[in-house]
């Protein structure tokens, strides 16, 4: 992690340069998985299943897109899953108590954002390494959520609210539209705004970034708040899709989100990667898990496969970077 100077020479990569090739490879991989699954399983190519894959991928993408920005700064947010659980439980309670989905959505987003802010403060002001700070946060949030719910399950939300996660518009699930919107916003923010480019610069070389006048601490704070708020958004979609909230819904979300970011080609060492890559990463991961499901592999295998994919993705990333140098 000390050889940051090597990366500093490379400017933040724009969408069409080498990244285009990396994204192209990943699209190819996704298509290949599709082809294999289409041969192996009759039901893979049905409309219902494809829409299901897209919807699942969008859930992973919401969490992973915010996380992408964090990883671009060479940080990590391990608290996203636990954040989704707490935000969902609090938003669910607000909707139950007040009957107002709009208020619940606002509170859910705010809860996610506040958790992100706390993460950002720990990383910037207290200077705790991000993976440890957010790991501590994970357990604080887990404890809070279990204590708050006390074993209860919230169930049954207004029909209008449930449309967000399970409704359709012109034949496509509503989360897919949200995915397209946030994919657009995320890509535009990272590639076309000064703040976005500053985030790349911080990841590539924090010292150079500081010396060139970038307010590093404030940008880092922003990145963790965005990551937390996206977890808040994901919690709303989950709440509305599952029509229930329990304390344990976040436990299986963090590893897939990290997997999606890494498969998508974002480097753990910061400064390299795109939000669009993360979308492809979420798609590939969902395709693999969906394929296992269709081939009736027990769900018990999912953490094993996700874990292997995380390690393979980092290994591939390091290999291609070494060759590029």
């Amino acid at each position, binding site marked *: 992690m000390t050889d940051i100077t090597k990366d500093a020479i490379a400017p933040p990569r724009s969408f069409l340069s080498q990244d285009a090739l990396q994204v192209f490879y990943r699209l190819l991989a996704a298509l290949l998985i599709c082809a294999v699954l289409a041969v192996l399983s009759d039901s893979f190519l049905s409309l219902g299943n494809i829409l299901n894959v897209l919807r699942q991928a969008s859930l992973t993408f919401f969490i992973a897109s915010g996380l992408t920005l964090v990883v671009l700064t060479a940080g990590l947010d391990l608290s996203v899953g636990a954040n989704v659980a707490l935000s969902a439980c609090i938003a669910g309670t607000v909707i139950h108590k007040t009957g107002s989905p709009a208020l619940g959505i606002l509170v859910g987003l705010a809860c996610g954002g506040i958790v992100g802010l706390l993460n950002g403060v*720990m990383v910037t002001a*207290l200077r705790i390494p991000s*993976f440890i700070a957010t790991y501590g946060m994970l*357990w604080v949030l887990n404890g809070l959520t*279990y204590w708050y719910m006390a074993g209860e399950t919230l169930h049954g939300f207004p029909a209008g609210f449930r449309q967000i996660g399970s409704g359709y518009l012109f034949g496509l699930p509503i989360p897919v539209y949200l995915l397209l919107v946030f994919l657009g916003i995320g890509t535009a923010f990272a590639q076309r705004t000064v703040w976005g480019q500053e985030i790349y610069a911080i990841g590539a070389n924090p010292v150079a970034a500081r010396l060139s006048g970038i307010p590093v601490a404030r940008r880092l704070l922003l990145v963790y708040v965005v990551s937390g708020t996206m977890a808040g958004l994901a919690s709303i979609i989950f709440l509305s899709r599952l029509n229930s909230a329990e304390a344990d819904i976040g436990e299986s979300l963090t590893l897939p989100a990290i997997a999606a970011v890494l498969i998508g080609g974002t480097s753990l060492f910061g400064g390299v990667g795109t939000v669009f890559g993360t979308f492809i990463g979420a798609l590939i991961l969902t395709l693999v898990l969906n394929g296992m499901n269709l081939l009736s592999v027990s769900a018990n295998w999912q*953490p094993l*496969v996700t*874990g*292997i994919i995380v390690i393979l993705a980092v290994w591939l990333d390091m290999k291609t970077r070494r060759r590029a140098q």
Partner: protein
Amino acid sequence: MREAAVVVQPNPLQRIPGVAIVLVLLIALFSAIAPGFLSVANLSNVLVQSTILTMLALPMTLIIMTEGLDLSMGAVLTLTSLCVAIVSLATQSMLLGLGAGLLVGAAFGILNGWLVAMVGIPPFVATLGTLGMAQGLSLIVSDGQSVVGIPHSVRDIYSATLLGVPVPIVMALVTYAAFHGLLYHTRFGTYIFALGGNREALRYAGLSPNRLLIAVYAIGGAMAGIAGLLMTARMNSGHPTAGLGLEFDAIAAVAVGGTSFERGNGWLLGTVLGVIAVGVLRNGLNLISLPSSVQVASVGVLVIVALFLDGLRSRA
């Protein structure tokens, strides 16, 4: 080499206050507000329950000294605990069960070390990946069910006594002695200090930092195997979530115990005091009937505070 190690060794006067104050404050607090906390039965209970954590926290200290981290330890302990249960159930032999646990634990440790040292993946991500793998394997070998009916020979380990001292405590003491000897009185221990403090020096001295790193992670995995035996004995069964989050308590104990996350020095006795502090915190909160969720959250706060103080000290 020897002299270099002495330089980076902790200054006890600077350290003892931190973790000792935390421990004394916690004990004073719970003596005041938790009825029954100060009884001999309860305190010995705290110590016996701390033994499993000790066996994880000691190797975690070594790993963190190399500027590493092992997030997979709790999940690996779950897996080894299941292996002990399954093998001892099938063979009715405690030793074969322990052997299986050790083997699987060491294999995961070597995998972790290989990923960190040879492949060069940052430790927290490499071990997060193996955490998923160990969790998945636990679900697969147990099919999500508890493994019950394990033989008496396994069960008795947790409840038996040796000269009036509970066997788990004897095992923890032996482990501590072994780690103390290894870290402070062998060349390997000196190398561990150098792994975190000055890796280049090792290379110039003609040693392979990579092989040493793999050995450190392998020790962690093997210790998770031994702790897996204790866990199975304690629960009288193998359970697919037995070790969930234990790595976090171990990291907490190391952090509270004053081992630095960034400078390659560690203090084993501090880690043991940290383990007891975590044990006292959980036990005390339990006695005043706060649910385990609050215990988890408070350990999280404890870690963040300890790391904040560590950061302050390293800048001072």
